[in-house]
């Protein structure tokens, strides 16, 4: 049974693309057949984060417009043969694709893939509508900041209005030292406000920047962010995995564990 997951946030720069890349790669690592679709037409990025930018021949708009078949446009990952990327077009804009076309494409891909991950653009305009059109469930990415949480709340409302009911929260870039000091909202605070299921907490980690520089997702590597993403993938697959114990730098107390409500 295949599942279509849209990764969205409302606000830009909170880590949608990083999350998409790592979740997609992580699921492929677990032996699933995965396709990542970059729906950010005009500002494509997922190809760079995946390190596949040099292989692009056709793109999403080409597929939708019938210039090529979906198979021709999908790029096989360097590391995982069951992981594919359908890149977005850089020279077009969001209106080049309609929600109906996206839905049709996603339905077509369902037959072949276990997971279809849609990397959604920031904002709530056409690009967002395209991305959520065919989605079964959503991962909301937010950071513990007022602006990101406010936008996440708006997105949750819009998703519900569009009949996407399975919505999970990824809290990204949390800094336990700041939480401990009381200068950053804790994951509990965020959950309290947004009142949706938590699926992962990803600590702020320099390795993310390094991995983006190199074009290799860090899921599963031996650092906290890599672990966190791996756990998110397991939870997506329906496994119960306890949340990581995140400790603040310099403070060695245990921090609140949050189990999905």
């Amino acid at each position, binding site marked *: 049974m295949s599942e279509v997951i849209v990764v969205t946030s409302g606000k830009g720069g909170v880590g949608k693309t990083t999350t998409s890349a790592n979740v997609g790669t992580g699921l492929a690592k677990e032996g699933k057949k995965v396709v990542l679709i970059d729906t950010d037409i005009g500002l494509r990025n997922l190809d760079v984060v995946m390190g596949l930018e040099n292989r692009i021949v056709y793109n999403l708009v080409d597929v939708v417009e019938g210039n090529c078949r979906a198979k021709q446009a999908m790029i096989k990952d360097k590391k995982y043969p069951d992981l594919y990327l359908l890149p977005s077009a850089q020279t077009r804009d969001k209106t080049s694709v309609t929600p109906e076309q996206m839905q049709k494409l996603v339905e077509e891909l369902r037959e072949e893939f276990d997971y279809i991950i849609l990397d959604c653009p920031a904002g709530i305009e056409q690009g967002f509508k395209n991305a959520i059109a065919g989605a079964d469930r959503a991962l909301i990415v937010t950071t513990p900041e007022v602006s990101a949480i406010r936008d996440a709340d708006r997105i949750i409302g819009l998703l*519900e209005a569009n009949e996407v009911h399975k919505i999970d929260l990824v809290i990204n870039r949390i800094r336990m030292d700041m939480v401990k000091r009381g200068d950053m909202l804790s994951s509990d605070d965020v959950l309290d406000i947004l009142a949706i299921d938590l699926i992962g907490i990803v600590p702020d980690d320099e390795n993310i920047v390094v991995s983006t520089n190199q074009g290799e997702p860090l899921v599963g590597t031996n650092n906290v962010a890599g672990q966190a993403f791996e756990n998110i993938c397991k939870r997506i697959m329906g496994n119960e995995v306890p949340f990581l114990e995140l400790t603040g730098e310099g403070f060695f107390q245990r921090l609140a564990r949050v189990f999905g409500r």
Partner: protein
Amino acid sequence: MGFFDNLLRRNRSADDAKDRLKLLLVSDRSNCSPETMELIKNDIIKVISKYMEIDAEGLDIQISQNNDEVDGPTLYANIPIREIKK
């Protein structure tokens, strides 16, 4: 540790964030301005106070978009009662 906590609590920006967010989201979710919400709240207090003594400070009203039972937004009011007037 407790001592430090108390000392630091005075300037915890996370608490500010939380308070601001809660207020913000109420109006975001309802498409009502905080002023309108405040007016609704005051009117509710006025009406209910005729019949019972309530904790005006603890009163919390919210407009929620997501509800399983009814379509469209719903107004929730949480009104702590101190004493029912006889």
